[in-house]
């Protein structure tokens, strides 16, 4: 008498294609996946707990480390939440500088996704090309903030300092060559038979499932739902600029690939408009009780020194209350929910991580598929494990 048996295997936590320390417990029947159970928490660093013991300014350093491929979005979401709590307005120039850095960061983050997806599918030269372009962003980031990653450039009420000399030609030359490079990659991949066979009809996520799991970002848009925080709840002057939100039709890995490729071109479009229309003015709010005084003031004004001292040693006291602010990070809706009791430390900082929700939809995507397609599925949701585990 024959019995049917399933085989349970572990994929990860140390597996090159899980993009970090993710473990999947897969139940297989032959090569077909019966069930998939993600096990997470290997990168849990307790950042939410840590943030309850730091001042609001110090926390900017911590939030960078959550979604480390798109630190500017992380800082943006955190600063927006604190600013909402305080009820302060950010000067227009600072808003646009933030927007430029975020969109450049989105391009860089998507380039990492493209390169690593290439590695997973054995197109290893792609990673070199993508990292060549990403390097340009790293140089820009270093120019602006002093850091290649984890910039810590945004401040509550604005940004640390104005854009440096040489920023504009550097960004323009990066954006000038970007479309040609993207065309090259697309020429290599979009109609490549192997690429298409590995992506089309793989890891399909139906719109209803995407909504049920709270999936956001390119994964949601790949399933045909045009939700983009930048359009739905514009922040930081996004409503001043024209851009399109690409949407897929089939909800498979190929549509997610197409959506991200188009998003890079749209980000470039936003940055070009923002560079042309960058307004003059201060780069940090002038409410000295909450925003750090600019460095130039410190040598002239005793009052500025006192404010600087109080803000650095003690920090700000937002009024008691709660606020939720969200941005469109390269992975989806990145939200911060901050509760304040009026003291100089937050009572609770909750990080709404897009990768966490997106990963939860993975079992639905891969069920009934082939084992080899799990690799494509993980790559196509573009998780950052620091974001999943926080």
């Amino acid at each position, binding site marked *: 008498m024959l019995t049917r048996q399933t085989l349970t295997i572990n994929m990860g936590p140390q597996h090159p294609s899980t993009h970090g320390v993710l473990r999947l417990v897969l139940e297989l029947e032959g090569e077909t996946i019966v069930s998939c159970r993600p096990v997470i928490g290997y990168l849990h660093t307790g950042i939410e707990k840590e943030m309850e013991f730091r001042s609001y300014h110090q926390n900017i350093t911590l939030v960078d480390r959550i979604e480390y491929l798109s630190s500017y979005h992380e800082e943006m979401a955190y600063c927006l939440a604190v600013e909402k709590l305080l009820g302060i307005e950010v000067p227009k120039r600072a808003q646009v500088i933030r927007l430029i850095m975020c969109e450049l960061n989105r391009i860089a983050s998507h380039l990492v996704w493209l390169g690593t997806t290439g590695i997973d599918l054995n197109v290893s030269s792609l990673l070199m090309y993508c990292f060549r372009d990403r390097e340009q962003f790293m140089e820009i980031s270093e120019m602006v903030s002093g850091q290649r990653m984890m910039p810590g450039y945004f401040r509550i009420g604005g940004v640390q300092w104005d854009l440096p000399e040489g920023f504009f030609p550097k960004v323009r030359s990066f954006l000038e060559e970007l479309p040609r490079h993207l065309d090259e990659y697309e020429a290599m991949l979009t109609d490549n038979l192997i690429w298409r066979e590995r992506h089309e009809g793989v890891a399909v996520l139906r719109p209803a499932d995407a909504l049920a799991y709270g999936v956001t970002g390119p994964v949601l848009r790949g399933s045909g739902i045009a939700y983009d925080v930048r359009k739905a709840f514009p922040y930081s002057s996004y409503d001043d600029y024209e851009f399109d939100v690409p949407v897929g039709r089939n909800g498979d890995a190929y549509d997610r690939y197409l959506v991200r490729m188009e998003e890079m071109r749209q980000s470039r479009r936003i940055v070009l408009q923002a560079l042309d229309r960058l307004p003059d003015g201060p780069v940090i709010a002038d409410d000295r009780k909450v925003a750090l005084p600019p460095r130039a003031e410190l040598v002239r004004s005793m009052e500025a020194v006192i404010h600087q001292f109080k803000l650095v040693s003690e920090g700000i006291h937002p009024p008691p209350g709660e606020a939720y602010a969200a941005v469109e990070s390269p992975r989806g*809706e990145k939200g911060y929910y901050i509760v304040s009791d009026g003291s100089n430390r937050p009572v609770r900082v909750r990080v*709404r991580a897009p990768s966490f929700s997106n990963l939860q939809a993975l079992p639905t995507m891969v069920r009934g598929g082939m084992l080899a397609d799990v690799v494509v599925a993980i790559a196509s949701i573009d998780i950052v494990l620091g974001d999943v585990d926080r």
Partner: protein
Amino acid sequence: MTPVQEFLAERFGEAAMVVHAFRGDATVTVARERILDALRAVKARPWAFEMLLDLTAWDRHPVEPRFEIVYHLLSLERTQRLRIKTPVAGDDPVLPSAVEVFAGAEWFEREVWDLFGIRFEGHPDLRRILMPDDWEGHPLRRDYPLTEEPVEFRGHVPKVPSEIVPHVPPRRR
């Protein structure tokens, strides 16, 4: 007050305990017993809050009711956000699971159980998710200390992390 807040206040009467919009965030606090009814009511049309974007909690220790569970909902049709909260007592931290209303609540609730020790009745698989399975205690509770692991570098005197920034209580206005 937004229409959905008015609707909840009317529909749930006494059970809709607090309705406010601090900094423009529409918020309704609903009694624990009616939380699933409230979630179902706003998920249905015409409100269509179909997405549970976030589910989390925070600890008010030592104030009672100690915990507050926070649901962040999104309506794509109305392009609107809604926050629903429910208080949970510290000596009886249990509330009904929202998994049957929103499938995505499963991991969020596991996380709240893991980090706050709040149980969700009717959850299909309530296990720890971020901390190791054999961990003791629930780290995001306010009475759980933040400590530093000892290191063996010479000359390193570990500071208690919670004392790096002195806590300054709320100012009197």
